[in-house]
C-alpha cells in the first residue's frame, strides 16, 4: 500500500533527509515541495508544490497559454477548471508585446490578470522549432526575427532578463536544444553547453527570492551523457529540475528509459518537470516513473480542430457520425461543456461560430487538469498505483503499453 511521508520542516529526522532539507532551507527559495504520498510499487508521488502565488497539487498538468492567453478561455474559466499553474512563452512574449511593456503592466500576471502561478520556458525550444536558425554559439542562439528580419541573439542572460520582466514563478534555464533524433558529437556538445548556460542563468537571475529557476537535464537518448548531465546539474542549488530533450519523435522505449534514468538520479525533495509531454498515456506512465509536472500544447491545440479528449482516446466532434449523437462528449465529465451540450449541438455549432472551439478547449483542459492527473493523484494517495494503471490501460485499450513497461520501473 502507499506510504504517506511528509517532507517538511517539522517531520524529517533521518540524516539523509535532514541534509537535503538544510540545503533547501538555506537557499531560501520561493518554492517548497511537500511530499504527501508515495507509491510503494512505482516511483509515483503526490505532492504539494508551494509557489509564490498558490500551492499546486502534483502530479500536475500545466496548460500552455503561449501569448499570455489560453486560446479563447478567460482567466476566470481557467481558474474554474482547477488550473493552478499555466505556461507563458518567453520567445513569443519577448517579441510581442516585449518585456518592457509587460514590466509596465506589473509582469505577465498583471498583464493577463492571472492570479495563480506562471511558468515560462526560456525561448530555447521555439528558437529551434520555429525560426530560421542562424547559429548556435557559446554566446547564445542567434536568429532572425520573423517580424522585422533583424538578427537577435538569445543568450542565457537575455532569456533570464526577459523572464525576470515577465515575473513568472518558475523560469527555465536557456538550454542548448537538440532534437532527440540527432546522434553524434552534437548531443554531447549541447549537453555540456547546457551546464555552462545553467551557471550563467543562475548568475543572471535578478529575483532568486521570488522566481524559481529550474535546470533542464539534457543528453539525448544516451544514458552516459544523461548521467553526466544529472551528476553535474544536481550539484547546482536550483529549486527544481526539468527533463528535457525528449518527447520529440523518439521511440517510446527509449523515451521511457531516459525518463526513469533521470528520475533515479534527481533529488527526491525537488520537483521533476517533464517538458512537452501531454498525451494521456505518457502522462500516466511518467507519473509512475516519478515525474511531477507536465505541459503540452496538444489538448488546447487539438480542441481547435474539434478533437475532444476522453478516457478512451479522442472524439472528433466534427465528424459526421456525431451529427445526431445526443450524448455529451463524456457522460461522466463534469465540465461546463459536458453539463450542458450534446455532441450533436457542438457538431452543428462548428459550422456557425468559433465558440464551438472554446467548448472543446474547456472540456480538454478539464480532462487533462482535473480528470487525468487529479485522478492519478487520488489513486497514489489512496491505493497502490500499480493496480490503478492496470485499470487505466484496460480502459484505454492500448495493448502495446502494458504491465511489461510498468514492471521495468
Amino acid at each position: 500500500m502507499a506510504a504517506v511521508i511528509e517532507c517538511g520542516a517539522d517531520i524529517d529526522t533521518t540524516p539523509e533527509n535532514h541534509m537535503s532539507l538544510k540545503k533547501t532551507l538555506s537557499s531560501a527559495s520561493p518554492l517548497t515541495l511537500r511530499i504527501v504520498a508515495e507509491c510503494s510499487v512505482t516511483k509515483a508521488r503526490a505532492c504539494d508544490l508551494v509557489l509564490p502565488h498558490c500551492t499546486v497539487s502534483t502530479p500536475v498538468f500545466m496548460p500552455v497559454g503561449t501569448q499570455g492567453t489560453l486560446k479563447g478561455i478567460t482567466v476566470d474559466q481557467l481558474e474554474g477548471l482547477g488550473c493552478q499553474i499555466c505556461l507563458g512563452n518567453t520567445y513569443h512574449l519577448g517579441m510581442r508585446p516585449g518585456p518592457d511593456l509587460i514590466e509596465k503592466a506589473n509582469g505577465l500576471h498583471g498583464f493577463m490578470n492571472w492570479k495563480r502561478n506562471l511558468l515560462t520556458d526560456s525561448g530555447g525550444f521555439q528558437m529551434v522549432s520555429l525560426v530560421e536558425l542562424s547559429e548556435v554559439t557559446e554566446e547564445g542562439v542567434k536568429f532572425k526575427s520573423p517580424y522585422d528580419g533583424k538578427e537577435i541573439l538569445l543568450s542565457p542572460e537575455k532569456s533570464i532578463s526577459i523572464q525576470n520582466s515577465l515575473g513568472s514563478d518558475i523560469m527555465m534555464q536557456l538550454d542548448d536544444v537538440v532534437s532527440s533524433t540527432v546522434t553524434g558529437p552534437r548531443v554531447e556538445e549541447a549537453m555540456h553547453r547546457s551546464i555552462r548556460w545553467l551557471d550563467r542563468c543562475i548568475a543572471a537571475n535578478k529575483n532568486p527570492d521570488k522566481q524559481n529557476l529550474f535546470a533542464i537535464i539534457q543528453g539525448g537518448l544516451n544514458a552516459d551523457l544523461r548521467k553526466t548531465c544529472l551528476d553535474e546539474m544536481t550539484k547546482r542549488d536550483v529549486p527544481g529540475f526539468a527533463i528535457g530533450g525528449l518527447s520529440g519523435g523518439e521511440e517510446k522505449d527509449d523515451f521511457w528509459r531516459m525518463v526513469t534514468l533521470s528520475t533515479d538520479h534527481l533529488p527526491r525533495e525537488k520537483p521533476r518537470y517533464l517538458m512537452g509531454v501531454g498525451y494521456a498515456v505518457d502522462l500516466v506512465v511518467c507519473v509512475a516513473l516519478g515525474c511531477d509536472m507536465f505541459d503540452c500544447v496538444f489538448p488546447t491545440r487539438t480542441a481547435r480542430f474539434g478533437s475532444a479528449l476522453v478516457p478512451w482516446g479522442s472524439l472528433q466532434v466534427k465528424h459526421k457520425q456525431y451529427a445526431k449523437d445526443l450524448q455529451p462528449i463524456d457522460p461522466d465529465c463534469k465540465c461546463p461543456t459536458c453539463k450542458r451540450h450534446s455532441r450533436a449541438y457542438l457538431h452543428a455549432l462548428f459550422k456557425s461560430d468559433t465558440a464551438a472551439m472554446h467548448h472543446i478547449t474547456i472540456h480538454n483542459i478539464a480532462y487533462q487538469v482535473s480528470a487525468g492527473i487529479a485522478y492519478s493523484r487520488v489513486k497514489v494517495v489512496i491505493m497502490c498505483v500499480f493496480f490503478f494503471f492496470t485499470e487505466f490501460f484496460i480502459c484505454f485499450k492500448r495493448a502495446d503499453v502494458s504491465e511489461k513497461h510498468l514492471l521495468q520501473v
Partner: protein
Amino acid sequence: MAGSRMKLEFSRVIQGRSRLGVLKGLGRNGQDSMEVPGCLLYTHFGTVPHLTQDTLHTLSNLPSVTQVTLSNIAEHQEVLEEFKDGFRKFAGLHDTLLYCSLHDPAAPCPTGYTTNKTVSVWGSGGRIELTVAKFMALQKIVQPDWYQSMADGETWQNNTSRKRVRKSVDRTLTHLDECLVVHQNSQELDGVEVFGVVEGGDILEERVRSARETAKRPVAGFCLDGLQTGSMDQTLRTQLIAAVTKELPEDKPRLLQGVGRPDEVLACVEAGMDLFESFFPFQVTERGCALCFDFNISPDPERAVLELNGGERDTAGETQPNGDHNLDDQTQMTSFEIDLKDKRYQDDFRPLVEGCGCYCCKNHQRAYLHHLLVTNELLAGVLLMIHNTAHYHGFFGALREALANDQLDLLKDRVSG
C-alpha cells in the same frame, strides 16, 4: 388564429410616435414579457458569437428573447427533426424566449435567387431553397415562441425597379397567407405567434400598401424589412417608417430588421419602432473594435466640470461618413467605437470604457486587448463581444430611461458626441 396573446402595454407614447412600455403575453404560457424599446439577443445557432454559457452569464440584464435564424438552422433540419424537442432544448438554452428570423442580419446574402414560390438562405454548405412548406416544416421543428413569416425582401439594392418592389410586396403577402394556413393547422405551433413582414423597398405607396394589407391578417406583430443600414439614408427611412406605422395597429409590436447603429436606432424609435436585432455589437467585435459611445445623460456635477475643462474624450479613429450607402460594407468603423489595433492603445492601461461594469472592463486593459488583436488571439473576440454586448444593452436601458423622462433629445445629442 384567435387573437394573439402578445400585447403591448404602454407607459408612455411621445408625440404619438415613440413608444415606451412592456410587451406582455410572451412565451408558450403567455407569462413572459420584455421591455420596449428593446433588442433581441443576436446568436449564431443559439450561441452568442464567441461566448459559452460562462462568459455569456458574466453579463447581467440580457434580453429575454434570443434570436436564431434559418440561415444557421436550415441545414440541420434532419437532426432537429430526429431530436423532436425543439431548438431551445437542442441548444441547451434555458430560461429564454426564442424568436426565429429568416436571414442573419449580419450576413447579407447574394441576390437574384428568390422566385414566386421560394426564398433562399445560405448555410455553411451553400444555398438552401425554401418553399412555404419547407419554411413551415422548419418552424415546426424549431418551435420558437414567435417567428417572422416567409418574405421576399430583395429590394434594398440601388435602382430596384418599381415592378420588382411591387412583386416583393405581393409575394410576401402570399407567403404570409400560406404560412398562416399551415400555422393554424399545426398542433406543434400551438401558442406560437407569427409576425407579418412589411416590404415595399423605398417606394412610399408600396410601403403603405404592404402595411395595410399585412395589418388585415391575424398576426401578432410586424417586421419591417428592406430598410437595413446601408440601403437608404435615415431621412427616407424615417419617412417610410412613419407612413407604415400609421397603417399598423397601435398595440402590436414592430420589429425593425437590419438596423443597429445607435443613431439610427434612436431615429427609428422616434419614428415608432419597438424592437431591434442586436447584431451591431457583433460587427464591431469582428473588426477588433470596442463600443465606447456615451449614453449617460444623468446629471453628474463632476462630469459637467470635466467636460467643461475639455476632459479626456476618446476620439474614435477615422470613420466613414453616413452618406455611404453600401449594404455590403458594414465592416466600416463607425464613430461609436475605438479601434484597439491602433498603436496608441499599445500601452494604454485603462479599461475599454471607464465605469463600464462588464467582465472585460473589470479585469482587463486596452493594452492587453491590443496585444490579443495584434497576435490574433481568440480571446480578443470573447472579451470584445462581452464588452460590446454589455455596452449596447446599456444603451437600450438608457434609451428607455430617456423616454420615461422625456429626454430623448438629450440622449440623441449625447450619443452623436
